[in-house]
């Protein structure tokens, strides 16, 4: 996955992401893609959650999946989730839940939906909740708000927050996160962050927009054979656009 939060030169906040999924679960020889990725593409939907006839929040999900991996509450906040691998991985939390040893920990994607369900949440409240709640598996929560510089990447272990990286640090106008801690080098065979940062810097502050973000997220290897969709979100308006993605061969398998 790749998530980007950032602002244009007028301070309008954007949040965009590629969702990559299906690694090592079979190869579709006919379509030159991962089998599970190919089966997931027809299940991608946008969901508008309403209460009393009023829109509460919007998400992008796969039919049958009720948690939140990508979502936006207009003029309030947006969240995307990127997978984080660690030695203390999700299996410990899973076993603790299955065996009823510890159920005081949240499921990562249900916690994300919980904050959308809460009527009183704003950007700071979201960061506080996602930072302080024990969770079952390590994860990156990428969060944006409608005000200038409201962007952050929360790097989570199961029990604690490892790091909160905020927009504006070292004069940054965007933050990009893949599946590695931002202060470490990615695996040499899976370096999507370097081309992503290069393309964002080439795009520039002034051209930050849905078009610019989509172009960056469509640039190989940010776009790869695992990419099933690109979602684009504008914080103030709550505008959400989602596009199914394919990576034509030649293209990195992940």
């Amino acid at each position, binding site marked *: 996955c790749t998530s980007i939060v950032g602002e244009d030169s007028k301070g309008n906040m954007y949040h965009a992401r590629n969702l990559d999924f299906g690694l090592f*679960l*079979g190869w579709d020889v006919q379509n*030159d893609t991962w*089998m*599970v990725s190919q*089966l*997931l593409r*027809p*299940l*991608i*939907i*946008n*969901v*508008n*959650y*309403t*209460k*009393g006839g009023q829109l509460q929040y919007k998400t992008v999900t796969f*039919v*049958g*999946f*009720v*948690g939140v*991996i990508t979502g936006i509450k207009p003029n309030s906040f947006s969240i995307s*989730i990127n*997978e*984080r*691998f*660690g030695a203390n*991985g*999700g299996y410990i*939390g*899973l076993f603790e*839940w299955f065996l009823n040893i510890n*159920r005081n920990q949240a*499921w990562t*994607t249900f916690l994300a*939906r*919980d904050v959308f369900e809460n009527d009183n949440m704003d950007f700071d409240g979201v960061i506080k909740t996602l930072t302080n709640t024990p969770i*079952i*598996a*390590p994860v990156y929560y990428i969060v944006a708000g409608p005000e200038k510089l409201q962007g952050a990447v929360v790097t989570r272990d199961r029990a604690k927050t490892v790091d909160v990286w905020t927009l504006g640090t070292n004069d940054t106008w965007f933050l990009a996160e893949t599946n590695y801690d931002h202060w470490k080098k990615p695996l040499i065979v899976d370096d999507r962050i370097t*081309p992503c940062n290069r*393309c964002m810097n080439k795009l520039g502050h002034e051209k930050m927009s*849905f078009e610019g973000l*989509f*172009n960056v997220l*469509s*640039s190989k*290897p940010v776009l790869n054979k695992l990419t099933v*969709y690109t979602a684009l979100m504008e914080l103030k308006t709550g505008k959400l656009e989602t*596009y*199914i*993605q*394919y990576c034509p*061969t*030649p*293209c*990195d*398998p992940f």
Partner: protein
Amino acid sequence: SVLAKYEEICEQAKYPPDPKTSFVPTYVVNLDLPPSQRWVEISKIYQKPLAALVTYIKEFALEFSPKLQKIIDLIDNKLGKLADSLPAPYGEEIKGIANATNIELGELVLYNIFYEVFTL
């Protein structure tokens, strides 16, 4: 051919993509409905592709090792009970989807906790 070299460039003209291949539909989920009813309509529309995904994962697992049938039986017979322990309203929503699609509840629970499972 997948691994063939390509020129790493920053794309500049990909937006908007062709709607014929990129279109994603939008649905409404009414939070005023009981959790078990919220996803019924959408789930019925997508019953076939959802069942195809679940079936594929089972077949893939069995091709990998026929011994995994025991795990599949465990998922089908035991994992469904986990839905009762999931926080509200998620367990009930998943049960509603299972009822609407006739997909084993345990398999849909696994699908919904796949993020955590995948970090294995």
